[in-house]
Structures are given as C-alpha cells and as structure tokens.
C-alpha cells in the first residue's frame, strides 16, 4: 500500500499525548489512519471521544494475515460529527492476544466486537458478553480466518450427514 504521511493539528496532539504508542500516521486515497500498539487503542478512542469529538464509533473489524507473526489487523473506524471527519485506528495483534474491549468508551462496540470474535476468534478482555453473535454457539472454527476452508466444511458436512463423497 503506497501511503502518504498524514500531518495535521490532530496528529501533533496525538503524538504529544501518546508518543511512542502510535507507530504511524498515514493516509491512503485521502483516508487517514493511524497504527497504534494494541494496549493504546482504548485510551486513544477515549481521548478522541472526550478531547477531540470523535463521538461515533462506526465500525470494528479485523483482517487476517496468517503468514504474519502478528496475525490480525484490528480496525476501528471513528467519526466526528463536529469535525465531519472519519479516521481509522489500526493495530496488529498476534493469535491469542486479548485486546481490551472498547465498550467502556463506545457501547456500540458490544455487538461489533462480538462479531469480530465470532468471525475471527479474537476474544476481547473485559467484554460484558463475549459470545458468538451470528453463528450458533456450538459452531466450530471462525469462518473469516483465511485457513477456514469452505470446501472442506462442505465436504465434511456431506460426508457426515449423507455418508457419501461430495465430489467437489
């Protein structure tokens, strides 16, 4: 991704407050994002909400890169009504790491984080209700991981339930 640096009054402020915790400020296709250490994400969200006015958490999602040591990208999108600005906060976490929940800052993170858990198996620490949300409770695996093979799933289902080879 060919990003350009993101410099503004906001990045100055964040740099002053969080220093080393924020690894990168960048911009791609005119959309600004920052990369932070996992522990810093919730404090950054809190700061952005209380001091800058980013009071609307648009989305929480993840991307899986199985070949990377820090396997998952966790992405928070926040928007500010007063500034009419949308930014992304990205962090990288390894398998098994439990990031802090953002529900204390934005209650809407509740379901969004449950969906991330459901689809990627990332558990959020201190989340009030860390259960699957879309899939049944006894579902095996986390479908949006790259190593979750839909063809294998289908073959296994056919074999278990119909007793034949699916031939796919």
């Amino acid at each position, binding site marked *: *991704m*060919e990003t350009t640096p993101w410099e503004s009054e906001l990045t100055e402020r964040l740099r002053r407050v969080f220093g080393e915790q924020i690894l990168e400020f960048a911009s*791609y*296709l005119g*959309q600004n994002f920052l990369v932070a250490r996992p522990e810093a994400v919730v404090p950054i969200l809190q700061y952005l909400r209380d001091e800058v006015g980013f*009071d*609307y*958490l*648009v*989305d929480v*999602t993840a*991307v*899986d890169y199985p070949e990377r040591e820090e396997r998952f990208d966790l*992405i928070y*999108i926040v928007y500010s*009504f007063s500034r*009419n600005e*949308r930014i*992304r906060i990205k962090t990288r976490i390894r398998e098994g790491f439990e990031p802090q929940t953002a529900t204390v800052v*934005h*209650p*809407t993170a*509740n*379901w*969004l984080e449950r*969906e991330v858990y459901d*689809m990627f198996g990332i558990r959020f620490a201190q989340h009030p209700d860390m259960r*699957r*949300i*879309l*899939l*049944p409770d006894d579902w095996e695996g986390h*479908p*949006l991981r790259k190593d*979750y093979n*839909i063809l294998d799933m289908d073959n296994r289902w056919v074999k278990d339930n119909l007793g034949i080879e699916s031939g796919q």
Partner: protein
Amino acid sequence: MPEATFLDANELILNMGPQHPSTHGVLRVILKLDGEKILGTECVIGYLHRGVEKIGENRTYAMFAPYVDRMDYVAAVSNGLGYCLAVEKLLNVEAPPRAQAVRVILTELNRIASHLLWLGTHALDIGAITPLFYVMREREEILNIFEAYCGARLTTHAFRIGGLQYEVYEGMEKQVKAFCKMFLPRVDEYEELLTENRIWKDRLVGVGVLTAEQCKQYGVTGPMLRAAGVKWDIRKAQPYSGYEKYDFEIPTRTNGDTYDRYIVRIQEMRQSVRMIEQAVDDIPEGPIMAKVGKVIKPPVGEAYVSIEAPKGELGYFIVSDGSTQPYRVRVRPPSFVNLQALDTMARGGLVADIVAIIGTIDIVLGEIDR
C-alpha cells in the same frame, strides 16, 4: 435481578420469534417481563447468516456485486451503489456524470420504496391494515421502473463497477416524472390516514425514545438519529455520486420517539422526490461507464466508503491485495448497529410497545445476519 414488586411477582421470560410476523423476518427477541413491563431484552440473530463476507473473499470484484443486493433486499440499489463506490474508490476512478445522475434517481426511488414498505408493515404491526395496500400500490410503480430499467424488481444489480450496465430506456424520464407527480399527493394521503390519527399517536408518541446522546453512543444512524435532532446525513456531510448538486433538506425532529421517526421518514420521501425531479430534468449526456478494465484489479490498499442507505450509514471496508478478488470485504450494516439500541429503547416500556419499537428501527434481517 429486578427489584421485587409489591406482589412479589416472578420474572417471566417470554420468547418472541424467530417465527413471528412482526419481527420482520427471523429475529428472536427474549423478553424479560414483570407483568406487562419489560425489564430487559436480548436479541438472538444469525438465522439468515449466509457468510456474505466470506463469499466476497472467494469471488472476483464483479462477481460479488450481485451478492450485496441480497443483504438489504428491500433497498438493493443502495447496497449496490455502496459497493460500486467502494471498489471505484480503490480503483481511483469516478463514474461519469450521466451514470451518477441515473444512480441518484434509482437510489432515491429505492429509498422511497424502502420507506414505503417500512410504513406499510409498521402500520400493519400496530393494527392499521389500510396503509399497507396504499403503499404497495405506489411501490409497485417504482418496481416497474426498476424492471423496465434492468429486468429485475427486487435484487436489481442495477449498477456496475465504474458506472452503469444499461443506458436509460426510452421513456424512463417520462415514467419517473409521472411517478413523482403522482406520488406527492399520495404521501399527503398517508399522512391524512395516520399523522393526526388518535390511535396511531397513542401508540407511538413517547414510545421507544432514544436521545441524541444515546444514538451516538450506540452508533445509531439514519432516520433514527435525525428524529433525535441530529441534522446529519452523509449525502450532505460527505456527498458522493453528485449529491452535492441537488437541493434538498435534511428533515429532523427533536423528541426521538417512534412518532418522530415516522414523521422523519415521511418527510424524507418528499425530499427524495425533490431530488429525483431535479436529477431527471437534467441527466447529462455522455458515456455511462468510466474506463475500467475488463478484469478489475485494484492496487494493494484499503478503503472505507459509506453511503446514506434508507436505514442509516451503510459502509464497505475493502482490503485489496492486488489480485482479482478482494482480500477482505467488510460490510457495516446500519440495521445491525441500530438493532443494538433495541434494549435501551424497550427497557421500562410495555410489552405491547415492543412491536412498535422493532418496527420503528426498520430492520431487514438479511442485512443484519448477512
């Protein structure tokens, strides 16, 4: 545990759905009741989960486009527009002006269709049967326009990445204008039936209140946010597809209750007609497709693009690894996020209100479960 009442009544758990006509699909709500009073709710969702995001990773960009129509199936055109805009953003191309104007016309028609269906079913849930027949009559006209344009009525797949697949058909302008002319008096008709209707007001006023502050906390967008007094609409805040060219208002109300949300949606239909009339009068000449290769291969990167769908902010976050298939497609569905506020709205209310509150969120389960 709830506080004991003077009768020392036990907490009652009541299951509503998934097969219940007024949950608009397959939503299951577990209600905790103390007599008629709601102590809490819990939504169980996922019955319609088809793994749309996983499918997206296993299809090329163009192949995935029809799938997005099947999320919010009553506003398929909006879904398609959001997806096309997101891929166009990654490709760094913009649809030509002619395509943008037609996109606005069809998307606004679809907004009206979506609001009409909402109005009919919401009124039906509350016990007013007549509006359903009225709104279906008008919605039919819109679906006829879609059918004439692209051959499909519900899951339209009207747009292509980079513009439009089809030129406007002969007589489309005339048909759309005729619809607009016919439709505005019809909105007055709905209002005559409902707005000052005493039963309607008794059932809606002060029910399911969400303040502006709560809306922001729960990420609630769309008509629900505007009914709480926040004048925010992505079409104005961050215009896309040429919306900045059209003159329209953002209707808002202040109480944030079910009645205000009804008024906001009614007003939005009028504003949509206003936009359609401006757009259809002035469809620019020119090509309908931007220069997009036969094989769509966006460069490595990621983008989040959101539009104002009939139900709120519909966002697409797409990560490209430079191949012909998206590395990750994330859909930020408005209904999913809005539904989360159900508990806040219903708590402390009466069990009879839960139907009105589910109706007022305007959920489509296809979009919530994906």
